[in-house]
């Protein structure tokens, strides 16, 4: 009995760690974008490395948690929801990593006038992910309060759309090649996508939470 208890405790810690990684990945992305825009290439490359390591760690952790849930036949009622939630949360890390790698590979030339707006967009992505992380923790610890955090995800996603629209409008009003415009627009849309992913996960989480309410 004690071994099952300690195995369960261990799994609780792993899930908490995984959720921390999701939150950190977006924070690292925000900081990486800041460094890219400031032209601090060396530090930026370090950040890219950090996110890459973090993404690998999160993948291993997720697979480990899912295997343990399955092998020990834990939470049979909520297992599929938790599986899905972990997969979806992992998408945020994967997307943040691929986006930052996109900056390394494509080296987009972002006009200085757009820097603040891009930073604001990344900050909003962090906020929406943060609200999602809080909702997820609530799902595990205090399911009745999930909805208290979920509405914030929606709020930040709207905010993100709004900022992205403004940024797109500004870029297309600039005197640049269409190719350059489209290139920058691609990165604006991509950063905005982080909030979209968070919102989509929040929708699933709302239903999963409803199922769990006693």
């Amino acid at each position, binding site marked *: *009995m004690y071994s099952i208890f300690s195995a369960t405790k261990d799994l609780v810690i792993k899930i908490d760690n995984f959720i921390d990684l999701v939150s950190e990945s977006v924070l690292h992305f925000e900081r990486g974008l800041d460094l890219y825009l400031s032209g601090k290439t060396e530090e930026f490359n370090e950040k890219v490395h950090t996110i890459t390591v973090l993404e690998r760690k999160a993948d291993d952790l997720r697979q480990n948690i899912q295997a343990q849930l399955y092998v020990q036949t834990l939470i049979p009622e909520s297992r599929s929801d938790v599986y899905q939630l972990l997969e979806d949360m992992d998408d945020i890390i994967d997307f943040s990593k691929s986006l930052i790698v996109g900056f390394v590979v494509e080296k987009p030339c972002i006009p200085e006038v757009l820097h603040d707006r891009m930073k604001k967009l990344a900050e909003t992505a962090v906020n929406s992910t943060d609200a999602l992380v809080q909702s997820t923790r609530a799902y595990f610890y205090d399911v009745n309060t999930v909805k208290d955090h979920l509405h914030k995800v929606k709020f930040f996603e709207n905010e993100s759309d709004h900022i992205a629209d403004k940024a797109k409008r500004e870029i297309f009003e600039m005197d640049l090649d269409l190719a350059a415009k489209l290139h920058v627009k691609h990165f604006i849309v991509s950063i905005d996508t982080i909030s979209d992913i968070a919102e989509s996960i929040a929708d699933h989480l709302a239903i999963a939470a409803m199922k769990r309410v006693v």
Partner: protein
Amino acid sequence: MMVIIFLSSGLFLGWSLGANDAANVFGTAIGSKMVKFRTAAIITGIFVILGAGISGGGTSHTLGTLGSVNELAGAFIVALSAALTVLWMTQLNLPVSTSQAIVGAIIGWNFFSSSLTDMNSLSKIVMSWVTSPILAGVFAFIIYMIFRFILKRVKIHLLMLDFYNRVGLIVVGAFGAYSLGANNIANVMGVFVPVAPFRNIETVLGNLSGSQQLFILGGVAIAAGVFTYSQRVMKTVGQGIVYLTPVTALIVVLASSLVLFLFASQSLESFLISRGLPAFPLVPVSSSQAVIGALIGIGLTRGARTINYRLLGRVASGWVTTPVIACIISFISLFIIQNVFDQQVFREVRYSISDSVSKKLASEGIHFSAKDDFLNVEYNNAVSFKNALDKAAFSLSDQEIKRVIALSGIKEIRVDPGKIENEISSGWLTAGQIEALTILDGREYSYRWEFFEDLGRQSIEWRLKNYNNDNKSYNRDVESKIDYLAEKFWSRE
């Protein structure tokens, strides 16, 4: 060998109880995949046997007062009729309970042997059928509210909650299996208690009385039913009735187990009585109906609209149809086995108001003008005697008629302590009780009450105390010992 053949119907009934009713204990846990079938089956098997062996006596006493089946072949048919009713109604997909089937079958025996059915016991039993699902519903409602209150305030991780829930389901499931064994074993083996020729045996765990051996045997039959056939039923119970979360599954099992325990535990009864609280009658109730009651209780927390009135109707119809069908099957089977297979299915008890009975009645203040017409006239059975009394002794109240019948039943008793050597050596009787029996060695009586009075004259330990709640369990113990001795010393010539 004959004993085993006759017991087989009880064992069959036990097996079907294990396959069907025991599924209620872990059904919701299996349905919600919280507990593996193997774990559930092992726990149920062990605790059903423990419940039957340790606490099985209470409810069988009540069944005994409903109708005392006094021949092994009769007990065989009664148990077989109940088992066939359960089997048939299950096949017809009708709600069925072994508790209701056995009561019907016993009444069938009463009709066939022209014995009287004790209406007091019957009404107590029927009332319990109605109250048990209601009580389970109330318990489930209250426990659910308490759980919800706690879970809203205590922040437990989903996985830790899952862990506690599993432990809870196993503990509560074990309690449920114990309660089921204690409450329902009387259905399976109760009718065999007065007639099965089992002697007390000494084991490493202590002395086992004849009825305890029967109950353990019945418990083993129930456990066999659990292992061989209950898996499918458990899955149906768990998934078929209503969607349950693991927490609500735990509440359903807890509420229904509490009800079974309340209606089975003699210790709880004594505890309640000693504190001046009302006690529950010790009556076998239906675990399926307790579970349905608990599910409705959970549903009520989400509003009265969730109540499935059709399901309620089906449950209530089972209260009537099951005993009636079992009664008919029992009556017909008794007729066949007596007349086709030439087996004695009951021992005739004749009734007569002798001089001694007449004096006894007078001493109790029971007088009726036509008493002299009854003097030394023998009646072949309780029904014809009662009919005669109803016609001639109309000044007597129902209670007085009941008393006249109880005192007039002829039972040729010859005291022979040699027949109960085992019971004496095992410490089942007190020193004073044994001494009284030794003094009475060889004496003969025509009526049970004469034997009883003489015992009381020899030792205070054979006397009943005043009828009040404090003395209830003491008196029941003395009465059951006297019943046992009266059966043992009843001359077979």
